[in-house]
């Protein structure tokens, strides 16, 4: 019944392979190095947390991993595909096929119903309407919101909205789920709810990269990377749980 999230991926090859990754922002004449040479490999089924103080480069890393931005130098191979120098169209396609995003601000479209929001990535994947609806309802069922499919985001609690966003991230069966501070806008009960859901997904074999500044949130991951000033401290090694 549950779709295999890492379908068609070699379980022994890394899903994510960053090599000497650098990102330099140019603001006017001022150059700012947000990522200063990061090497990192994430394997299928891993649950990784990236922690670090504010301004350390976590979101920059997340944007790179999510194909929302490209590296200044270095390389990024995602599910066997080198995305380091892809153009906008190819990046859009890579995001659509490989990545499921969960944002701090949920980013649901208020004009669409819950199921309409979950369907969106499938629209851009060119999936036929009937199959789209079916898969979106299945994803909502997975996050326990089948009964809220016709509700608009405004009629849902924060925790429910984030669960709709998780359903949207899962519906394309992506190579990785990227969650940037997914509990930052939630009360403690909803936080536990959403983190429990990520645990469940991990249990079902999903690859999850969770970005957070909260230690107890990071504690649920298998591997924790500490980012400071655009670098992994401790030579980029994961801290085994």
């Amino acid at each position, binding site marked *: 019944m549950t779709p295999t999230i890492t379908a068609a991926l070699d379980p022994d090859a890394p899903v994510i392979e960053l090599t000497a990754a650098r990102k330099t922002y140019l603001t006017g004449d001022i150059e700012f190095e947000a990522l200063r040479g990061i090497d990192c490999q994430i394997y299928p089924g891993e649950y990784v947390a990236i922690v670090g103080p504010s301004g350390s480069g976590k979101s920059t890393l997340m*944007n790179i991993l*999510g194909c*929302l*931005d490209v590296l200044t130098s270095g390389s990024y191979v995602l599910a066997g595909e080198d995305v380091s120098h892809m153009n*906008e*169209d190819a990046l*859009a*396609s890579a*995001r*659509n*096929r490989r990545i499921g*995003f969960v*944002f701090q601000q949920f*980013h649901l*479209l208020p004009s669409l119903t819950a199921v309409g929001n979950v369907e*969106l*990535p499938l629209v*851009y*994947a060119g999936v036929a309407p009937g199959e789209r609806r079916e898969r979106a309802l299945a994803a909502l069922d997975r996050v326990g919101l089948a009964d809220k499919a016709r509700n608009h985001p405004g009629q849902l609690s924060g925790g429910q909205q984030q669960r709709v966003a998780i359903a*949207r991230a899962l519906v*394309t069966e992506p190579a990785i789920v990227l969650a940037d501070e997914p509990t930052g806008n939630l009360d403690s009960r909803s936080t536990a709810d959403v983190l429990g859901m990520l645990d469940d997904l991990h249990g079902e074999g999903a690859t999850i990269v969770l970005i957070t500044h909260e230690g107890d949130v990071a504690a649920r991951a298998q591997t924790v990377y500490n980012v400071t000033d655009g670098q992994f401290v401790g030579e980029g090694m994961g801290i085994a749980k």
Partner: protein
Amino acid sequence: MRSLLTMLGIVVGIASVVLTVGLGLGTQKDVSDQIASLGSDLLIVSPGSSTDDSGMRGGFGSAETLTLSDADALASDVAVPDAVGVAAEKTADLSLEYGESNWTTTVTGTSTSWTDVRSRELMYGDFFTEDDESSAAHVIVLGSETATELFGSTAVVGQDVTIDGDTFEIVGVLAEAGSSGDTSLDDIAVVPMNTMVETLDDSGNSESVQTIYIKAASSDVLSAASQEAQTLLLNMHGISSVDDADFTIDVQDSLIDAATSVYEQLTILLTGIAALALLVGGIGVMNIMLVSVTERTREIGLRKALGAAPATIRNQFLIEAMILGLSGGAIGVIIGVGLALALPSVLGSTIVISGLALIVSVVVAVGIGAVFGVYPAARAAKLAPIDALRDQ
């Protein structure tokens, strides 16, 4: 609500396009009705050659080349099938007397077909009849101006006038027709051709006529009728070359030209107004779409993050701009048609609503939405997803 305000430009623009085209077509119809009433389906055959520069035309001698038998021949359905009426005119300037007053006018001898050929109607009484024509009866039809000059009134049917000592009974008075050039069409007296020939004509050439009018079946066959008449007359006059023709066939071109140029100027003016309104409307669409792109930056960022390619985002905004154009166009058509129905009773001008014009208007509105949506849509498509997502 705000998009309704934005659409106002397109609404006004399309409404004025509908009105412009309607007014243009209406004016065209008015003009052609007017031309028809003045006789744009009318050929005027005069004696003398148009290539003859000797100044003989209209005088004696060679200018008396049109005859009553020419007119009879032209009236034949076989020789000139595109003609529906022929009326020859034999005229003389004569003095009409009634009691103490007298008035000199052009007395015209013609046939009963004259009213139809010259597009004239009667105000009082009737035109003379075939019987009057064959018996050369002493009956006369007066123009309204002539009647007024002689009698001080136009209700003069049954009265008598005297010309050269002969008494004529007034059987009808013509309705007013205005003037053609500087000759009044209302200062005129009309008698049967035979009466003219037997009683009034003193030119010494009873056969000759001044003018033969030929009415064509429609303005479309005017030149065909002109050709047929020319061939027949050349034949009757034993002339082999058109260059040697001893007659001239004219069309009332000048009238058509004048009327058409008025119509063309009006069209240019109205088209300018419509184009300006549509330009304003288009800029309105561009403006609201730019505002919409700015307001929906986060939505655009999210859609891109979920895998929408730049072209997909561009098309989404293009379609929205076209829908704006379509809605504005549809409202504009409704308002335009409403005005087109209401205005004629106020302005007294004719407005023709054409289905084609309405369809073209809506297509134009959608096209304007598309054209002015291109820039905002390109802006949306170019937004970087991270900047778009970060936007608060």
